[in-house]
């Protein structure tokens, strides 16, 4: 079973993607399943280490938190761009020590921070576990430190580690 379907989640999402892009029919289901199986084999040849998701039930909470955060920071950044502009706003660099080391968790964190306006991921130094961020509004530094350290990091640790 593992040999035939090395990445069940990947293959299942590919079938779903295929059916979303076409119309649902038996022919498309068979074709999509065949393609996703081949893609699963190709992927396991390229990237043998399989991401392990330990707790699926944390994921909806993570997505909900993220969507809400994105709405808030969209409003924030849009307001800053329109009103204060070049006046009082200052941006800043920020270094955050990270506890997570799992590369999949880091990838998800990168997506989270990029998708949230106001924070930009500059680099991650694996030797020291330091994340270098650039933040649009320097006064929010403590808020971001809190959000990363106390909200997202524990959730990602629960999911992946």
């Amino acid at each position, binding site marked *: 079973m593992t040999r035939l379907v090395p990445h069940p989640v990947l293959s299942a999402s590919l079938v779903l993607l295929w059916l979303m892009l076409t119309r649902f029919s038996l022919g498309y289901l068979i074709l999509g399943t065949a393609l996703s199986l081949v893609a699963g084999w190709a992927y396991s040849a390229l990237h043998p280490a399989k991401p392990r998701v330990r707790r699926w039930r944390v994921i909806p909470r993570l997505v909900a938190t993220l969507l809400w955060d994105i709405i808030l920071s969209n409003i924030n950044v849009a307001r800053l761009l329109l009103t204060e502009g070049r006046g009082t706003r200052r941006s800043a660099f920020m*270094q955050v020590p990270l506890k997570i080391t799992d590369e999949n968790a880091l990838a998800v964190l990168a997506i989270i921070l990029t*998708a949230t306006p106001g924070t930009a991921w500059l680099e991650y130094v694996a030797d020291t576990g330091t994340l*270098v961020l650039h933040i649009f509004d320097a006064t929010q530094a403590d808020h971001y430190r809190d959000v990363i350290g106390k909200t997202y990091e524990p959730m990602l640790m629960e999911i992946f580690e």
Partner: protein
Amino acid sequence: MSPLQAVPLFIAIPVAIMVVLGSTLTLIGALGFARLTSFYDRLHAPTLATSWGTGGIIIASALMFSVIEGRAVIHEFVIGLCIVVTTPVTLMMLARAALQRDRAERSPVLPEDMQLRPQHPEPPAQG
């Protein structure tokens, strides 16, 4: 009667709100991108367009075409997913290139503790 006229008002209003919201956020992001002066600041402006800018337009499109065609049209969300998953790749590449260059030039843009990569125990002979 065109398909657009067949859309009932209670669907048309949320669709219009989402389209206006999404395109306004994209416009604000583009304006910010044009007006900001520092490279690092400019990294932030387009994220308005890639988050709720895209999100609003996608939701509006899915809602409207689901109503017009009478089935769930949700492939727009695949676009959204692809944007969300791939944006970090380019943004990180640009950001790291800028950081690398500023460190090599000892640019005053970077604060003192950012001039070196955090893992160097002693400063290298030439930065």
